[in-house]
């Protein structure tokens, strides 16, 4: 039976929390902020082939904010790209599931970790598909802090110039960077206007609203790349993690894990 995006996002959150707790790894706040986006993508939008992850007809999803990899690993396990028990190896020495996303994991297109690489890579893929009239799409998830990197703007300029309508960029706009807020680091506003001036088709929405996400993600840009500015909450779903810079780097202890899971389960009951 097909899993709903809500159920998928809930499972992603719980598994992400378990993985980072066991591995004593960081970035849980960034992972929880995109759990709804990733849930909607895998449940409702992406054309995927879990038994043949490299099927040429698949849509390509690139997580440029590679530090939030647990969301993708959890989603791929839920969608049966590999057994769920593999998630338990996250953070183990020599595990394929590294703490930044790895292309060695079935279903992962691209390894990232350094920021500002995913969008230019996705532009290359979209350019290939467009020139060969192929119907698959490219989705790139960016963090908001990542927009400090100039390579994104280089890529967007190229994508607009070449009318890459098969490219959809999703900005996880949780407004926190690693030390403090976006505003106090390098202000991004007016962000929509910036993207529009670079030639993108821009939509702003609530990045936790599954209905809106699904509707908007299913539609490509018209003769131009599409940018979705998804307003999100860092640490979304766990009260004591929401909007806290602390959870960019900290991993939960066992008590915090139990509390977090309890909150997530009750919210989605």
């Amino acid at each position, binding site marked *: 039976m097909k899993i709903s995006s809500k159920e998928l996002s809930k499972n992603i959150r719980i598994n992400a929390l378990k993985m980072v707790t066991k591995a004593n790894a960081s970035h849980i706040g960034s992972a929880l902020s995109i759990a709804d986006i990733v849930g909607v993508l895998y449940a409702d939008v992406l054309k995927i082939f879990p038994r043949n992850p490299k099927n040429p007809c698949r849509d390509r999803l690139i997580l440029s904010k590679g530090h939030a990899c647990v969301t993708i690993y959890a989603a791929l396990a839920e969608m049966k790209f590999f057994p769920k028990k593999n998630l338990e190896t996250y953070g183990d020495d020599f595990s394929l599931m590294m703490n930044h996303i790895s292309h060695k994991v079935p279903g992962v297109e*691209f390894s990232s970790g350094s920021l500002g*690489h995913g969008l*230019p890579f996705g532009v*290359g893929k979209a350019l*290939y598909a467009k020139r060969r009239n192929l119907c698959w799409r490219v989705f790139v998830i960016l963090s908001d802090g990542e927009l400090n990197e*100039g390579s994104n703007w*280089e890529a967007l300029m190229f994508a607009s110039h070449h009318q890459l309508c098969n490219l959809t960029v999703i900005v996880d706009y949780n407004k926190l960077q690693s030390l403090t807020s976006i505003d106090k680091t390098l202000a991004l506003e007016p962000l929509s206007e910036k993207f529009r001036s670079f030639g993108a088709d821009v939509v702003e929405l609530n990045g936790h609203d599954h209905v809106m996400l699904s509707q908007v993600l299913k539609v490509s840009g018209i003769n131009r790349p599409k940018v979705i500015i998804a307003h999100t909450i860092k640490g979304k779903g766990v009260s004591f993690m929401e909007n806290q810079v602390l959870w960019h780097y900290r991993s939960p202890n066992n008590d915090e894990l139990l509390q977090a899971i309890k909150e997530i389960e009750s919210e989605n009951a």
Partner: protein
Amino acid sequence: MRKAFIDELIKIAKVNRNIVLIVGDLGFSVVEPFQEQFPDRFFNAGVAEQNMMSMAAGLASEGCHVFIYSIANFPTFRCAEQIRNDVAYHQLPVTIVAIGGGLAYGNLGYSHHAVQDYALMRSMPNMLISAPGDPMEVRACLRYLTEYPQPSYLRLGKEGEAFMHDSLPNLEPGIWKKISKNNKTASKAIITTGNGLQIAAGWQKGGRYPDFELYSLPLWGMSYKKDQPKQIEKFDQIMTIEDHLLDAGFGSWLLESLTTTPHLMQRISIKALNPIVCGLVASQSALQSKGGLS
């Protein structure tokens, strides 16, 4: 070398539709024939090397063999992390074509002097360095790179290089190609890569080092150190010549290949550029002379 490169690439692209050429807003009067014949496989990425490199990786991940063409430092140091993470780590067939290796653009200033590029490229395990010494080696290297697509760095001079081969040589990575035309084997050898071949040939023509055999090694990299001791042990004395700084250059690479056979190390002497040239502006020949390659 630029003309040999584009002519050969066009030849290959006629039969291999996966060949793509991307330029970083460079290549006037060189790349146009490719653009005219393959408009769907030619892109000017503009002056944006980071995007150019990652985008090339994206195209290569779908099956293209992408050639990136620019002046030496721009598609290398400017986007070193994109090369390391997106191209080399993912083992994608992107060939970085650097024009003006060494001091070919001597008068254009330090920004255009490529004297540390081997250092960058040879620190990546999956990167094949391709530094041809004459136009024939350019063609031979291109044939090898397209027959075995992989992350690679093609370092070209600018123009006017003399022909050292009468016909297209067969090249293999890590294997020295004999340039000397005699049949006997001497006890001394000069090993060059890239423009070092032109320098060494000029020296020999002028009567220097007459008792040294001359070899070229256009294809090399981290993976091919293992092939060196056996070739070195045939000679009592080896001299390397390169238009690159000694530090982390070609001669240093050859020396490092001898860490398990240290008794061979004393046979090696290295002629590379003195770092005194860094920051100086002059013609290629004047800078080479100042740097100790005269």
